[in-house]
């Protein structure tokens, strides 16, 4: 009698099988979605890493341009200020982009759950720094182009070169 009572019926067995199957399906879906998320995140990190390397190179070039520009046209106040600002911005961007690129190169050894847990926070920080870097590089390039353009028109309008030549010419005359 007892044996008859404890023995599950076919329906119960089928229901238990269904529950197990659903649990397995749910688990596999979870694993798939987390894996997919991780894959997507990994792809995004790779893409951002490449972008950051490009930005890093551009900001380094901008910094070099600032140094050259400062030596060539940096005589006038407003141009000098612009070049110095561009140099500072591009230097900060270079450091930020390089650090981001290096940090994104590392593949986290953490388990999926831990990565998943930290993802939101880290993702937000990465995104903010990345977008700020993009804006910074754009600003540095802008600041770099402006004084060169400004200096060109400045020399054109005021013919500063000829004024300097006048002083040079004066220095070549004897003092009486």
């Amino acid at each position, binding site marked *: 009698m007892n044996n008859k009572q404890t023995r599950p019926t076919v329906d119960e067995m089928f229901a238990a099988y269904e529950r197990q199957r659903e649990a397995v399906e749910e688990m596999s879906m979870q694993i798939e979605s987390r894996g997919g998320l991780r894959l997507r995140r990994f792809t995004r990190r790779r893409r951002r890493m490449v972008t950051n390397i490009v930005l890093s190179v551009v900001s380094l070039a901008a910094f070099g341009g600032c140094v050259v520009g400062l030596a060539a046209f940096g005589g006038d106040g407003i141009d000098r200020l612009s070049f110095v600002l561009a140099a500072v911005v591009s230097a900060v961007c270079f450091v930020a982009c390089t650090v981001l690129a290096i940090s994104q190169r590392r593949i986290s050894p953490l388990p999926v759950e831990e990565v998943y847990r930290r993802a939101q926070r880290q993702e937000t920080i990465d995104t903010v720094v990345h977008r700020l870097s993009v804006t910074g590089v754009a600003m540095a390039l802008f600041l770099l182009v402006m004084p060169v353009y400004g200096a060109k028109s400045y020399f054109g309008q005021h013919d500063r070169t000829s004024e300097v030549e006048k002083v040079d010419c004066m*220095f070549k005359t004897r003092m009486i």
Partner: protein
Amino acid sequence: MKKYWNVISIVVCLLLLGAAVLMRVCPRKPSPDGLGRIYCLYADSKHIDASLIKGYRINDTLKMDVVILEGIDTTGWAQLKKEFDIKTHKEQECPKEFTYEDWIALDTMPGCTFFRIKRKDPMLRVPPNKPSPDDYAVFWQHGTSMIFIFDTKDGDEHTAVLYKTSNEVFKDCPNDEEEKDNNQINLL
């Protein structure tokens, strides 16, 4: 979040554009302190052409501001002569060691005269052997209606300007070392 970033990007672009327009539209006026004050005095004059050179290179380590004042016509030059107390050789008394012809010929010879003026009052001359931060070094180039005002702040800058004068003159004549030395001694 994406929407916000778009808005921020547009705002940043507009700010940059605004800055660019401001930089183009705003006139570049020097500060009214120091040498800029003299430049501002003559910048709007019809008879005098005023130019300000920021950071003229005197030597490898020294740069200084220079103002060039040029009388465009006789009225402008007369005004400059009056205000900076400049007298041509013709207007000065001929010394005994010169004949009158030689003396007035100096006005047309290529050369320049050096003097120092008070920052506060360009009419006041200062002995050139006692440079101080309160005065400017001024050169008047003969045969032209141009004067050059150098913003020398101390004795070293004063010496550097004078050294450049004598050095540039004798640069192309390496055999004139003795004359160059004498000239520098006379200047200092």
